[in-house]
């Protein structure tokens, strides 16, 4: 990748490169995001946006209480979000813990969901506090069980203490394991990075190290995918494309629960990164409750009436 020529991987070169990035003015970024939040999406464009948002969802369950049964229902829902309407697209992927990958893959394959990828959270998700050896093994396990997307977390402790090389090396090591077998999504956990300057730096760090996607959050920390954070990450992938001619994807996750939230995300994508990013290859939304709200809004558009929550399936 040509962008890799910008740095040689050493701590110094990384630091030097990241220092050339212009700062982010928080007030300005919030303001821009707020203005885009007032876009009014109606009728045909709303219909398009709802279906696009459904196909971008990484339908997620990441609970200690996850069981094989829970994973199987999630997979069925992922394939046929609305059992009464075959025109509803399937979601972008299902996202589960490492040990559930095999169950998810098998079940998807058995119900005709071969085209839906299974994403696994890896590298000692969500805290990332484990030895490098454990993190690498975690990733290998997930891939061997059939995960074709890896959602890794960065070492926020290392990032905040200035060990940028450490963060970079770790992402590269995971990327090497993924190679051509799995897409790598790098979770920045922006709620712990706090400043938008950090979000921009971490975005570049991940992209330079080989991320295919940059992802906001684990969903276990608030705030998560706030509009200004997503805006800064979209600016980063847009600008990185200028440098490298490579398009990196973006995945907001955490706190996106309503159709309105999801449509606001799509508006950000269109107006910041550009329409090229408006597809599940380059934009995903990590969510669980969102799907049902999208389905209910979709019914409303088709029938003109709001249905009760009993008309969508709980899982």
């Amino acid at each position, binding site marked *: 990748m040509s962008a890799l020529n910008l740095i040689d991987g050493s701590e110094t070169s990384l630091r030097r490169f990241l220092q050339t990035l212009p*700062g982010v003015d928080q007030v*300005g*970024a919030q303001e821009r995001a707020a203005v885009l939040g*007032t876009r*009014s*999406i*109606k009728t045909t464009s709303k219909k398009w*946006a709802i279906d696009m948002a459904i196909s971008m969802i990484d339908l997620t369950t990441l609970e200690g209480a996850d069981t094989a049964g829970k994973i199987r229902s999630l997979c069925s829902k992922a394939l046929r979000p609305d059992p009464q309407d075959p025109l509803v697209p399937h979601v972008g992927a299902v996202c589960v813990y490492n040990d559930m990958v095999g169950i998810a893959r098998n079940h998807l394959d058995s119900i005709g969901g071969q085209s839906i990828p299974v994403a696994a959270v890896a590298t000692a998700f969500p805290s990332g506090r484990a030895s490098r050896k454990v993190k690498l093994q975690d990733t290998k396990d997930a891939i061997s069980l059939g995960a074709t997307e890896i959602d890794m977390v960065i070492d926020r402790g290392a990032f905040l203490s200035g060990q940028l090389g450490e963060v970079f090396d770790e992402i590269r090591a995971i990327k090497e394991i993924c190679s051509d077998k799995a897409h790598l999504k790098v979770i920045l956990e922006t709620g712990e990075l706090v400043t938008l300057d950090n979000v921009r730096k971490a975005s570049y760090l991940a992209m330079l190290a080989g991320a295919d996607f940059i992802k906001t959050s684990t969903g276990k920390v608030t705030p998560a995918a706030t509009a200004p954070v997503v805006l800064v990450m979209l600016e980063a992938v847009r600008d990185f494309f200028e440098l490298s001619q490579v398009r990196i994807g973006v995945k907001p996750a955490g706190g996106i629960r309503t159709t309105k939230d999801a449509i606001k995300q799509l508006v950000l994508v269109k*107006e910041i990164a550009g329409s090229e990013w408006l597809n599940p290859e380059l934009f995903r939304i990590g969510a669980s409750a969102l799907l049902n709200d999208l389905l209910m809004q979709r019914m409303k558009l088709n029938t003109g009436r709001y249905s009760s929550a009993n008309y969508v399936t709980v899982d």
Partner: protein
Amino acid sequence: MSDFEYAPAPESKAITNISKDYGLFINGKFIASHNKRRFETINPANEEVLAKISLADEVDIDKAVKAARSAYIKVWSKMSGKERAKYLFRIARLLQERAREFAVVETLDNGKPIRETRDVDIPLSAAHFFYHAGWADKLEFAGFGEKPKAHGVVAQIIPWNFPLLMLAWKIAPALATGNTVVLKPAETTPLTALLFAEVCQQADLPPGVVNIITGDGSTGSALVKHPDIDKVAFTGSTEVGKLIAKSLAVGNTPVTLELGGKGANIVFEDAPLDQAVEGIINGIFFNQGHVCCAGSRLLLQENIHDEFLSKLQKRMSKIRLGDPLDKNTDIGAINSAAQLAKIHELSSSGKAEGANIWSAPCQIPNKGFWFAPTVFTGVTQAHRIAREEIFGPVLSVLTFRTPQEAIEKANNTPFGLSAGVWSDKGSRILWAGNHLKAGVIWANTFNKFDPASPFGGYKESGWGREGGRHGLGAYIKGAK
């Protein structure tokens, strides 16, 4: 649909109730003008006639001034500040209640997008009345002496770029300090002022405290020359401001003028670039550039010129020009054919003088007055487009090498209304702020307004301040 095109999302006109024709609002009632002359106000986005408006002459003006004088003597000057405040609060609340209606009427009459009237013009207008309502009973503590006294009858002339907001800037402090008012809205945008007259009736404001007379330049000129006017306040072009100053120079009538500008937006190499791009866009394309404090000159540090310009042009390509009533429109119609001609004239001069023009690719509607967002590069101090106020969506880009040179260029203008500084370095911002000769200086933001913040200019950008404690002084006798 393969792309995410926004379907039209127009605000409904059903909420409005625009009359076919309007009289003059004098002594609490709408009355026909003495000579029965009329003119039309149109929607600049499609050139449709919205209403017929009365053209006031000397006789009408005299009637309005007499009504204001009588209201001042008999009612308003005797009323306590606390009681005056109640009226101001009531007006503010009525503006909020009728905000949607006001927003739609303003957009129809002016051509600016509903997003701006809805989110800026109308809420800020209400905020000005709330703010000044708070001052009405506290004037003795405002630093203007123990018993601050009103001037009496105030003549106010406002422009077409922010019709209701400029009315609020004028009427709210005048009433709060105990003056009565004769106000003339701009010829092309009288509707919200006439709607405001209805609000005065609704608020039971004593007749004659606010009088609204409509007309053209001749009406305004006759108004400021009326012998029984105690104070004149004008917002508009420097050209007309000079005429007013000249006509009042022989007497003792105090005058405040808020005139033109050629604001410099200075972007240093260490600026937060993406937000600076937003700020430049907001600085020059907000309200189609019809803003006296617009950041119409972009001063770019030369070493970031190419990168910044490329970002700016990409961002400009995303500006949505079109139906002002559509909630997704960013830039609306130019207010009048005359203004459009002026913008064309100045941008042709830019081309003729050798600057490079670039306009955002956008579909220009067939009817109405429109001008695509435009940027001129390669502009120098010697170009007309770097010196004259264009008052349209046209940005002139100049470069500088050092902070000192930036300040020198920014100040090298007969105007001095606004300036913007973009830098991540606090010390540089403060240094620039100390050296820029402009009434308002924004740092890492632009076009921010608040009733508590005084606004006004240096040099040919005007006399006096509006808003804040300073703005009150303009309406108090003998205040400095």
